[in-house]
């Protein structure tokens, strides 16, 4: 029998039992919809996380710390280290950083009002290089960065300059770094622009001075390894991990830690991927259940249509024709269910994305006050690849579970089938 005819007969049979067919198909729709919803939602969620991480971490910037978990803290870096890193392939810029945490014994105050700035850390940097390395993050909102010839200038972060909505230090103000033994005066050159709400390069609570000024301070005088952090910009983020490896090779084992944002991102991506796969596996179970439903309903149909099968065989239908007729029904259920399931699943993922977007608030640093409410926008991604996989899966399940009842029908003895009441 022609396949087109087989399908049209199967379609006629399905239409004859509309309620039964739609309920059986519904099972497949639910299974496929679940898988598609999880896939497209997961894809969208990953995209959002990726985007947030890209905003939080400059992917082309490596951050090098002295010491490691394995070997403990180490001294720091010096200019030779900086020069050595500069010589590595695909490294476009290297700049050292000195950090001074502000404590009770070291404070940053407005020289005139005596009010304490909101800063937690003083960072000593080369302003020009920092602007090149973090062009999006290292900008002033008011004033300007210090020129080469300007000395004893300071650039507080946005939240360092404002405490309780009152400006503590503005452009032109004098600010003093006060310790029990000495006081160093600075002039505010500019105020850093507001940073993001996440990532480790958020400088809102920092205040920056030039590295030369820091090295002149009594504490750093005569120190051989004064730098605590080295920032490295690679020419393209895809080189991050190879460059990181080469940097590690420059130092004794475990004496430094290189923070590679792309590696971290890959890890997070892997975890999200795993979670997505797990959820999809659960979704697949619902499709299996739908498969059992098909098997159940088709077994009943074979029993009901025993006599009909007998007639078909009596007038010359081969076993495989009968098999084909029943498999065609299973196939059609799979195709319909798969198709509707894809649309339903995508619809569900849109709805869920709206709900989730309202529920999930972005993470913020623990020490930071609550940021302005910011919605997490999850846009479901329709991936044709997943659509094809899910569709093929639906059809496969339907055929596999339809095979048993179809074979049962095909194997019926025609005489017994004709006698069946």
């Amino acid at each position, binding site marked *: 029998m022609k396949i087109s005819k087989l399908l049209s007969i199967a379609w006629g049979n399905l239409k004859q039992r509309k309620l039964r067919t739609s309920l059986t198909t519904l099972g497949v729709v639910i299974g496929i919809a679940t898988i598609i919803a999880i896939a497209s939602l997961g894809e969208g969620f990953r995209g959002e996380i990726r985007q947030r991480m890209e905003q939080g971490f400059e992917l082309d910037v490596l951050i090098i710390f002295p010491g490691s978990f394995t070997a403990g803290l180490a001294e720091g870096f010096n200019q030779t280290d900086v020069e050595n890193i500069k010589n590595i392939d695909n490294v476009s810029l290297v700049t050292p950083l000195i950090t001074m945490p502000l404590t009770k014994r070291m404070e940053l105050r407005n020289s005139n009002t005596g009010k304490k700035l909101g800063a937690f850390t003083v960072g000593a940097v080369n302003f020009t290089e920092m602007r090149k390395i973090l062009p999006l993050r290292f900008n002033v909102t008011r004033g300007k960065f210090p020129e080469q010839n300007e000395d004893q200038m300071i650039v507080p972060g946005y939240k360092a300059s404002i405490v309780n909505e009152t400006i503590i230090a503005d452009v032109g103000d004098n600010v003093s770094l006060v310790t029990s033994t000495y006081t160093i005066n600075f002039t505010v050159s500019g105020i850093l622009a507001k940073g993001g709400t996440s990532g480790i390069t958020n400088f809102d609570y920092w205040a920056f001075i030039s590295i030369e000024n820091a090295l002149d301070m009594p504490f750093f005088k005569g120190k051989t390894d004064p730098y605590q952090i080295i920032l490295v910009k690679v020419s393209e983020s895809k080189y991050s991990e190879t460059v990181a490896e080469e940097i590690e090779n420059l130092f004794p084992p475990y004496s430094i830690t290189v923070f590679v944002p792309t590696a971290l991102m890959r890890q997070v991506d892997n975890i999200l991927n795993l979670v997505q796969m797990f959820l999809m596996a659960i979704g697949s179970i619902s499709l299996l259940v739908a498969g059992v439903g098909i098997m159940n309903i088709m077994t009943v149909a074979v029993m009901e249509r025993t006599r009909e099968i007998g007639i078909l065989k*009596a007038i010359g239908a081969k076993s495989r024709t009968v098999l084909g007729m029943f498999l065609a029904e299973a196939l059609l259920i799979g195709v319909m269910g798969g198709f509707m399931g894809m649309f339903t699943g995508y619809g569900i993922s849109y709805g869920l994305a709206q709900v989730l977007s309202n529920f999930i608030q972005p993470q913020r640093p623990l020490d930071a006050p609550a940021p302005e409410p910011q919605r997490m926008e999850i846009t479901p991604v329709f991936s044709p690849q997943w659509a094809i996989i899910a569709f093929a899966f639906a059809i496969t399940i339907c055929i596999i579970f339809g095979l048993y009842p179809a074979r049962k029908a095909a194997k019926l003895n025609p005489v017994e089938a004709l006698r069946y009441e």
Partner: protein
Amino acid sequence: MRSLLEVRDIKKTYRMGKVLVPALRGVSFDVKAGEFLTIFGPSGSGKSTLLHLMGCLDRPDEGEIFIEGTNVLKLSDDKLAELRLTKIGFVFQFFNLLPRMTAVQNVELPLTIAGVSEREAKEKAKEMLRLVGLEARLNHKPFELSGGEQQRVAIARALINDPKIVLADEPTGNLDTKTGWEIVQLMKKLNEEKGQTFIVVTHDPQIAETAHRIVHLKDGLIEEIKEVSKRKTP
């Protein structure tokens, strides 16, 4: 010349639960091409079993069946299906039409199975329905037709593939006498006009007498094979 159909010492036993019921206990006879033969006997004599075996719907426990000289019991199930499709037509007591299909669809079914194009199948089916006098009922479904009309559709279906042998199992058993006679008349007419061989199972002696020959069956054995000298005309 060999006969169209040869039945050689056929035995068949059915199992009803734990009891073995011998349906046929050694039956042999020949059917010539173009013959109108009735198999006559009381119920339980093995008539239907014999018809099913001749129609290649089932296999005997012992014995041989030749159709046009071919030992059909040596053929595979698929080959038997092909044989049923091309050389044998069935007419049943309960018509056995597919309830969801129209008269035309039911009649074209064997052609559909054979893979004939839809247009050609439809044309032939209509022609065949005209031949059995149902040109006005082409698109009716079985439940919209009377018993006699349903049986005519079944006969049209049995004949659509132009089979050598038409096997009818109590074709009048579910019809009133008048309609039953009309069906017999139709079969006789087709036998005479198209030369097809008809083998009709019946327990009605009147209908049995319409044949060229009668095979009397009793308790799974042939009691006698009778030549009908004066055929009854319906």
